[in-house]
């Protein structure tokens, strides 16, 4: 009796958390649409969005350029931030759970370095694959991210039959260090123009990407999220260690492989469309875990929501704080993320000290 009432309370709390997070996403999305260096009246913005989505507008005479700004520049930008933030945060939560390491993030196992290298190559050689056009860069980035995952897998398999966590982390570090060196090599070989482009890309940004990048990331995000989300129980079970997970019937190797693939899809796609945006994947899962506890059933979806909303906010700050100039979004995520992370660490320690 007592237990069931507690559980009811808890599930209520969880429901509230989901509603709050959903509201947060909606709120930041609207804020992202409303606030910018260019002021457009709110009714006009709402009209444009509703007109284009549900075909219900009530205003005439919306200037074409305002419609373009909202529908083709601002909205895809906000949505891309949402998708990238959600992908990175989910991938971060998955990697942390999978590697049983709170310091893991989407960049730990080197997929992002691989994706970045692919992008850098495209920028360096100015190649355009026929039929892909401006999609060349993100597609190549995703493919090279995947090749990196395969290389990491191969290395892990050669050195440890059971896909040991430590080996995965080590292989990831080795591969990213190697790829990082190649990337630096390419940068130093490039001419100034290419270098500018590469560096701008490496900064990470969700601006000036347009709908095409949103369309590009969405399928990867959906597939990756699906794979990761349906494995929440395996992630929980892995918290006890792989042997214990095996004992309760988890196919550890299969589960790990799926989660790695899912999280790598998310990471690769996010890096491909936006460059390497740090801290989202590290901080957001921790934040969510502090609120909900470590159960991945809630950590995973809530990380997506909060991560998406967080990146929208970060982008908003990046493009308004010294408008009309923009700051690289990675600077904002790090500037907000690092102190928040430090605070969380301190708070957690104090909290634990109090209970002990």
């Amino acid at each position, binding site marked *: 009796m007592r*237990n069931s009432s507690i559980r009811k309370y808890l599930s209520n709390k969880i429901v509230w958390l989901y509603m709050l997070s959903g509201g947060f996403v909606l709120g930041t999305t609207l804020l992202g649409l409303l606030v910018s260096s260019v002021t457009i009246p709110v009714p006009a913005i709402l009209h444009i969005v509703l007109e284009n989505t549900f075909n219900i507008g009530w205003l005439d005479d919306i200037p074409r350029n305002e419609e373009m700004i909202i529908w083709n520049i601002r909205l895809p930008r906000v949505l891309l931030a949402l998708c990238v933030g959600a992908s990175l945060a989910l991938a971060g939560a998955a990697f942390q759970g999978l590697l049983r390491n709170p310091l893991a993030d989407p960049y730990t196992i080197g997929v992002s370095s691989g994706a970045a290298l692919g992008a850098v190559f495209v920028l360096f050689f100015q190649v355009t694959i026929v039929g892909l056009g401006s999609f060349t860069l993100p597609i190549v980035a995703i493919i090279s991210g995947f090749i990196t995952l395969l290389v990491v897998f191969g290395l892990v398999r050669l050195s440890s039959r059971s896909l040991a966590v430590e080996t995965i982390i080590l292989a990831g570090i080795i591969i990213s260090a190697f790829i990082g060196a190649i990337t630096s090599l390419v940068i130093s070989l490039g001419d100034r123009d290419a270098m500018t482009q590469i560096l701008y890309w490496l900064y990470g940004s969700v601006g000036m990407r347009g709908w095409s990048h949103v369309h590009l990331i969405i399928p990867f995000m959906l597939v990756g999220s699906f794979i990761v989300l349906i494995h929440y*129980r395996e992630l929980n079970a892995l*918290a006890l260690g792989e042997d214990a997970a*095996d004992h*309760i*019937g988890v*196919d550890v190797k299969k589960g790990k492989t799926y989660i790695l693939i899912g999280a790598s899809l998310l990471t690769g796609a996010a890096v491909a469309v936006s460059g390497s945006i740090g801290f989202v994947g590290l901080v957001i899962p921790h934040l969510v875990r502090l609120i909900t506890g470590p*159960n991945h059933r809630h950590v995973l979806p809530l990380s997506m929501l909060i991560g998406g909303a967080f990146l929208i906010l970060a982008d908003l700050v990046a493009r308004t704080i010294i408008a009309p100039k923009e700051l690289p979004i990675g600077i904002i995520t790090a500037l907000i993320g690092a102190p928040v992370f430090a605070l969380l660490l301190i708070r957690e320690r104090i909290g634990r000290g109090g209970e002990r």
Partner: protein
Amino acid sequence: MMKVENLVGGYTNTPIIKDLNLEIKKGEFFALLGPNGSGKTTLFKLITGQLPIQKGDILLSGKAIKSLSKLEKAKKVAVLSQEVQVSFDYTVEEIISLGRYPHQKGILKQLSKADWKVIEEVMELTKISQFQKTQFRMLSGGEKQRVLLAKALAQEPEILLLDEPTNHLDIKHTFQLLDVLKERQQTMDLTIFSILHDLNVASLYADRIALLHKGTFLEVGDVDTLRKEDQLKKVYEVEVKAQSHPTVPKPQLLMTPNYTTSSSLLNFSDAYKIEQNDEYIHVQFDRPLRTISNGVIGEGIQWLKHFCNFHVDKNYDCSDPTQDIKMWMDKYHIPHEQAVGMMTAVKLVDKVIVTKEIEGINMLVIVTAGVGNAVDISAGSLVGATSQIGTINTMVFIDTHFTDGAIVNGYMSATEAKVKALQDLNIKDPASNTIATGTSTDSLLLALTQQGKKTPYAGSGTVVGKGIGQIVYQATQEAIKKYLKRVK
């Protein structure tokens, strides 16, 4: 339930388990014993599928374990291993709910009402309900292990594999945990297959045991198999002595360390001091003596240092003599857990102390005697206790080394000598008017220094037995004479 047939397996090329056969019956607690490296954990890993079976088969209810999927296996077999590290701050409830993993159905794989019922039940059983929302890592080692047991039980397994489940636990938590398991075994007919390190714990809890040695079974059988000291010595390479548990009919094993105490030989005549007043006689030795006695406290065969005889009034209310003796000893700062305590109404000044050396063996005897309650043990009628002064308390200390059998021999010899003394003084049982064999409340203790050559016999056919007889006879006779003189 589980059958292991000609099993061969282990790491890579060299099999650790070599041609093993075993059958575990439903509802039994089977303990797997053996030193480190004997292959216990390997056998478990072969069962759980973490290591490949090279040859042979493991059958679970007649089905080859290889043919079961991981989920099917998890529904039948649960594992509780040594303490595991849990990453992140999972609550107890969340950890236990992981045990429902193999039973969860549907696309969302949520916990159903039935799942929650099982979870609550196992928490109740393992007495961790109050920790339901507590973070796992806040718990103590024993509580943690109970949570993990609850998780394993939540799997509702047919067989539970325990890999040294009490390894990090203190005695309290060890017994708590095993009691829970035992209860589950008895009430739910759970089959338990456990690796245990502690042979005595295994003896107390297991129904059957197997002794694994270098990948093969040396012994399989009920716990009394543990009495085979030679086998244990072969496996563990430690001097092992099997004894019986004092209250439970199970063997308990005592290990003898390999080091020798380099204490110098005791000089018997300097080794004790005797303190005496009107209230007590206290004989104190520097070292514990191997002692057999029927004293009020310190009975049985033990190692003891203090030997006391307390004077009580002849109208002493003997409703709780044990407590009284302990109280008196505390009063005089004598550690009662290392002492034999006797009682007598005889005036302690009438005690007789005799020392003697017989065939190079030093002996000391102290006797207090009263024969008011003299009894012929062979006579028919039993007379109720009278308030006469009449107890013969005998303490015999010998500087020699007896086996346990010799100690009993010596005890007999001393008793026979006492009987002879009574007979020669013509002490009669007043009820039957026949020669008495003793009094109704005689106490005797025999204490050995256990140094020198080991003597296996101390009966009347041996020099030492004769020596005991002579010295006890002499002292008893003198003491009775003193008593008779006083009561006249």
